[in-house]
């Protein structure tokens, strides 16, 4: 067992699960989506991205790309949230909430791709 692989797998799966947890719930109901869950998803996604740095293989490149997509989507979601609350002052209206959640849904898709690659890579290794 390789400890590095454990950490790697842990963060990728955790990034996807947190993302999924935040995404779960009615799309226009802010009370179904907790801000701390989004924060945790962003942090874990960033860590997963950094863990993927420096792998020169083809699979490593796709891994990094999916993570970067997820980061981008989640940070966009957080930015929309912050903008609505602090800059325009309209608060978490159903329309703002649904755009935040749909952005996080995009990130979830990227995370699922990342998971699929992880599984495929593991199956390929056969060890």
């Amino acid at each position, binding site marked *: 067992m390789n400890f590095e692989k454990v950490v790697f797998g842990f963060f990728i799966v955790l990034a996807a699960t947190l993302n999924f947890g935040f995404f779960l719930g009615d799309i226009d109901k802010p009370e179904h989506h907790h801000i701390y869950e989004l924060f*945790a998803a962003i942090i874990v996604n960033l860590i997963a991205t950094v863990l993927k*740095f*420096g792998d020169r293989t083809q699979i490593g490149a796709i891994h990094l790309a999916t993570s970067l997509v997820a980061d981008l989507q989640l940070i966009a979601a957080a930015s929309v949230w912050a903008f609505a609350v602090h800059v325009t002052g309209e608060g978490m209206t159903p329309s703002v909430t649904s755009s935040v959640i749909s952005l996080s849904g995009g990130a979830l898709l990227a995370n699922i791709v990342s998971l699929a690659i992880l599984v495929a890579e593991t199956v390929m290794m056969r060890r």
Partner: protein
Amino acid sequence: MHPGSVFFIVLRRMRAPLILLIIVYAVAITGLTLIPGVDAEGKPAPPMSFLHAFYFVSYTATTIGFGEIPQPFSEAQRMWVTAIIYLTVIVWTYAILNILALFSDRAFQQALAAGRFKRRVAHLNEPFYLVCGCGETGGKVLSALDEMGARAVVIDIDENRLAELELEDFRSETPALVGDAAQSSNLLAAGIKHRCCRGILALTNDDAANLAVAAHVRLLRPQLPVILRVEHDDIAARMHAFGAHLTINPFATFARLLALAVHAPALYRLHDWLTGTPGALLAATRDPPRGRWIICGYGRFGHALVAELLREGMEIVLIDQHEVKAPGFTAIVGSGVEPDVLTAARVAEADGLIAATDDDLTNLSIAVTARQLNQDVFIVLRQNQADRAELFQALAPEMIMAPAEIIAHAALAQLITPLLPAFLRAAENEGDDWAWALLARLRMQLGSAVPHCWQLSIDDNMAPAVLSLLIEGREVLLAALQADPTDRSQRLATTALLLRRDDADALLPSPETPLAVGDQILFVGARKARAAQELIARNLNVLDYTLTGREASGWLWRCLGKRVADSPEADEHLG
């Protein structure tokens, strides 16, 4: 190394500091969004929002410190902020130090340099020579190439030698790579398959590495000229198996030249004069005498000398540390430094002495002792290290054998003017009297300084003007390339030494020789003459002038001129 690898090295090395940074930020931000604040009246207020927390941590961690924004903090917030200031500042410093350490890391710098080298070689779009090894020999070759205006790419295993190279005042920049020339990746990076690579010189002091270069060239670029330095006969045989045409053994080369100087002094002088560094003045020395020769040191050089001098019918006395048993000469055990040994070799009656050991100080000491015992002895000194040149010159021996110089001259002659070695070989068949006459003629024309030698091919690249006239069916004489482009009645200071046509060589072709497509001609002459000849060979108008005496004219005037010449009235006008 992969060109993008520098980027990956940075990413890989930054993993730990970045993850630490993210975690510390996360902890700091989370804390700030949980701890209640205080409003202006001192009443408890809700905690910071994520936006404010992120903003605060960002400016605090980077030590910018705008203060307590948006309103003064509560005591609990201040406690937490005190902790996170230390945490975040330390982690930031760690990340920055890590980056700085990476940039001063040797492996990283080499990766950077290798990437830069590869890019520079790939972007070269003029002909260049690949030089493997830039020790004394390689250094001489590089400065001579630079002198001739040719580009070069260098590989050397020793970083210090390449650093010295950077201090040299070269006219064109020379990409240099620290690495083993025997490795395929290094040779590929240095452009062995580059379309502009004109030739490869393997001049390292490691015969095995030179052999590896020969193998690469044979298999990757079989048609490319390659010049190999070699000091062991068995390796030379293996190089020939790889199809290497030119291997240079400095010891055998010098021994052959010494023998040439004994039996054909004029040919030797011609050789010396034509292969020297252009512009240098050759010292007038006497010719090596026949008779009794003492050779000190029976290594690779000693072996080559003995073989050549025995063939010349000399009497040889050999002095060596070890006992030598071989027919044909007397051998004495000793180093030659002690006067006793030299006396025992009867140096007073010797005609020549060769200090041929691989130690410079031993050679100098032998020469000094021998000079004391015999004023008139002809001394040949082997000089192993270039930086001792002053010492060797001060002793004023009749000949100095410096391997680096011999290899450099032979390599350049072969690479830049492959016809020159062919000319010198052909000259040996002509005999010594012929060589005296030629030498006298050339010195009258060119002076006694070492002249420039160059080669001209009648092809699209070097002589487009000549080629276009030949294709039109006009006759172009060799004399047209040797006339002064400003006044065709004057001759340029140059002589054609050899004309190669369809693998047949003609020595000293006459100026009346008509040129043909594909001819290769070897010229000797002044630098200015070479530039003028280049102009003639490339510029149709100038060639037309040297050929017919008609002044240069543009297309319009040529057309008008043709019409005037063709019309019958023109003849009347011209009378």
